[in-house]
């Protein structure tokens, strides 16, 4: 592989020093074989500017910490290989989420709030009996739930969503998918009317204007388009019955 010289244009802003205006800072780095943005950003911080803020945790595409705009596209930095990018690379923080500094945004608080608003836990009247055998479930159902449960809360679907960018309370595809996960789960005893109260609004499923950037941007490939359609259909029917 030919050794390219990469030029990074990185957004810099620290909300703790608001008198310093947001700016783009340029860093130059020699590309290495197998270089990912995880490797590149750490090199820049360790060798060029140790104040640079960004988030990685698992660096393996599992934990969802490192969502950012890479040349305008919301995606995971850890599994972006520099060889798939041009020599000029622009890195910006994900929009919608609160900026903590440079490329670091507060997805944790957003997703916790979404979980609270959608009451994203199994609602059941049953109590757990430690001496009883587990309740049975078909493996097909289990896999179906898992399909929706695979969301890693990286926020790429939210950052790229036109509605979420203009409506601060919109729960976005991640929120709708979360609701779908519990709707599919036979252990959750909520009925459609109860779900309607959670997502049957303009901040929920009816706020979506169907641009489907979420589906394009999901780095783990959750079929968000299908999940949106599923919840919309169910909620439209539930709306009729009201």
């Amino acid at each position, binding site marked *: 592989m030919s050794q390219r010289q990469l030029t990074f244009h990185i957004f810099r802003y*620290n909300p*703790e*020093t608001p008198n310093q205006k947001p700016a783009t800072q340029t860093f130059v780095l020699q590309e290495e*074989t*197998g270089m*990912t943005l995880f490797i590149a950003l750490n090199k820049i*911080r*360790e060798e060029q*500017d*140790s*104040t*640079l*803020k960004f988030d*990685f*945790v*698992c*660096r*393996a*595409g*599992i*934990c*969802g*910490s490192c969502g950012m705009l890479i040349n305008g596209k919301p995606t995971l930095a850890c*599994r972006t*290989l520099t060889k798939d990018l041009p020599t000029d690379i622009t890195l910006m923080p994900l929009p919608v989420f609160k900026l903590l*500094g440079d490329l670091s945004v*507060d997805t*944790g*608080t957003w*997703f*916790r709030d979404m*979980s*609270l608003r959608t*009451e*994203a*836990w*199994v609602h*059941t009247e049953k109590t*757990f009996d*430690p001496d*009883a*055998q*587990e*309740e*049975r*479930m*078909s*493996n097909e*159902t*289990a*896999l179906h739930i*898992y399909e929706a*449960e*695979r969301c*890693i*809360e990286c926020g790429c679907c939210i950052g790229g969503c036109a509605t979420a960018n203009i409506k601060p309370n919109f729960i976005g595809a991640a929120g709708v998918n979360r609701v779908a996960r519990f709707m599919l*789960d036979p*252990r*959750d005893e909520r009925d459609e009317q109860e779900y309607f109260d959670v997502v049957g609004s303009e901040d929920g499923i009816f706020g979506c204007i169907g641009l489907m950037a979420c589906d394009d941007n999901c780095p*783990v490939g959750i079929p968000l388009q299908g999940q949106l359609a599923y919840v919309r259909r169910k909620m439209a029917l539930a709306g009729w019955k009201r």
Partner: protein
Amino acid sequence: MSQYDRFTSDVLIVGAGLAGERAAIEAATQGLNVIILSLVPPRRSHSSAAQGGMQAALGNSAMGKGDSPDIHFADTVKGSDWGCDQDVARLFAEMAPVAMRQMAYWGVPWSRVVPGKRIYDGVDIHEDPEKEGLIAARNFGGTAKWRTCYTADGTGHTVLYTMDSVVIKLGITVHDRTEVLSLIHDGERCSGVVARCLRTGNLRVYTAKSTVIATGGYGRLYGASTNAIINEGSGMFVALETGVVPLGNMEAVQFHPTGIVPTWILITEGARGDGGYLLDKDHHRFMPDYEPKKKELASRDVVSRRIMQHIRKGYGVESPYGAHVWLDIRHLGEKHINTNLREIANICRNFAGVDPVHDLIPVRPTQHYSMGGIRTNIDGMAYGLTGLFSLGEAACWDMHGFNRLGGNSLAETVVAGMLIGDKIAKYTKEASLNVSSALIEEHVRFQEDRIQSLIECRNGKENVYQLRREMETILSENVGIFRSEEPLQKAVAQLHELHQRSCQVGLRSGGKGADPELASALRITGMIKLAYCIAAGALARKESRGSHFREDYPKRDDENWLKRTLAYWPVGADRPELDYEPVKITELPPGDRGYGEASTGAASANR
């Protein structure tokens, strides 16, 4: 008076992975006020990355028929190479099935038994129609029965998300992006922590009747580790730095046989459990030559050593990142790979540019797990300080001894959380919070002074990143899979010097607010202390047991070494002090592990 925010709760839990959250749930459901601190949002914890599964003797699957806690106990003790506490292993094995069923009740979409016939490694398997829909199990290394419960390829993710959903439902307070700098204690009792907010850089004080450390392992001391980058052992070193809390068996470091080259991301044991093979440069499946019975599924320490032994014989595949072997799952077929092993497939495609449906996967043993940690009793109470508890990978409880079986760590987090959480609740209800403001002030001022010295470069201008790379190299090169006297002595000497230098770190960044360089600088001395405990413990232990393999002492030596290392770091000392305590044998006297250990003596002889 220093400026800081102060928070008080009944129970303070440091770490929001599975162990911390499960303990928090137990304490909260018993009516206690709980605060959880976490470096990152809870769902980003390293628990989420565990793909393989959790061991529990449910016995639903055909290949798990007849399984029981007795067999799970025996596997765990053998796996530990008789280094574990047997009363802990017994308690764990008995409770694991209940913990898994509770997770099912809370919402984990466990994979379920599907009736019918399939072929696995040349054997016909018929799943019993009467078991349809119960929690299924897959094969994992070192177990007599198929016992590992799993959710497709995302066990840790689904269990953590479910656990966290219960935390949210219960309204438990979580302060994420918060890092603990020290424990507040008077030498006898722990009363909370001094922490730093990673959003603003401000110091905070948390006081509580009981303080619980559940911060996971220290994988990042080794450069090549499968662990998340937050696994820097912070909970362990803040306990060590009290001078009175010992760390147990720090030399017991587990290497996973299959870290992908060169990013060291874990390829889960599920790949071999589902029938994957290891191949050498000639595409020869070599594990049956060494371990005819267990083949690729001998315990992790054995497979890791066999791979390195085979590479040393010249059968490794050369690469710019060192020699490796291949993992082959192609024969499992596209459908199986893309559903049951999807995360593995994604990792291969995204991080190594190979498609495991058609290509071989480059792998090499990589640091993976720390059996050692804060030494506790069976109730999870840390030695040395009342009011301090620890559980999960941060703790040495000690059910893993010198080698942990795959699927036992994730299970431990939940089982220990359930059991120790109850003990924490009982303790806390009887305890009172009585901490003097002078003591708090003293601890805060100490941290303020440390931060100010780093910012002003008062003690020197050592570069924290440089020190860190040196520490990683020392451990990887001298305290790895094969160990012996000379390299270990070298490691101890180098770490001694590195520890001195770490007291002379100075910042280049100015250290304002939530400065990331300051965060690294505040950790480096503690991390080097942990590395020192590992190296010193390994040098002292003149035998081979589980993952600790001394080429110069290749046999296990029960006469002299059936004991647990306790490493202390007295306040102001420049090196750790080692002490020992006996290992508790209750049911199963030391014997042969039955997979490979009998012949490991030969491993180094014919290299």
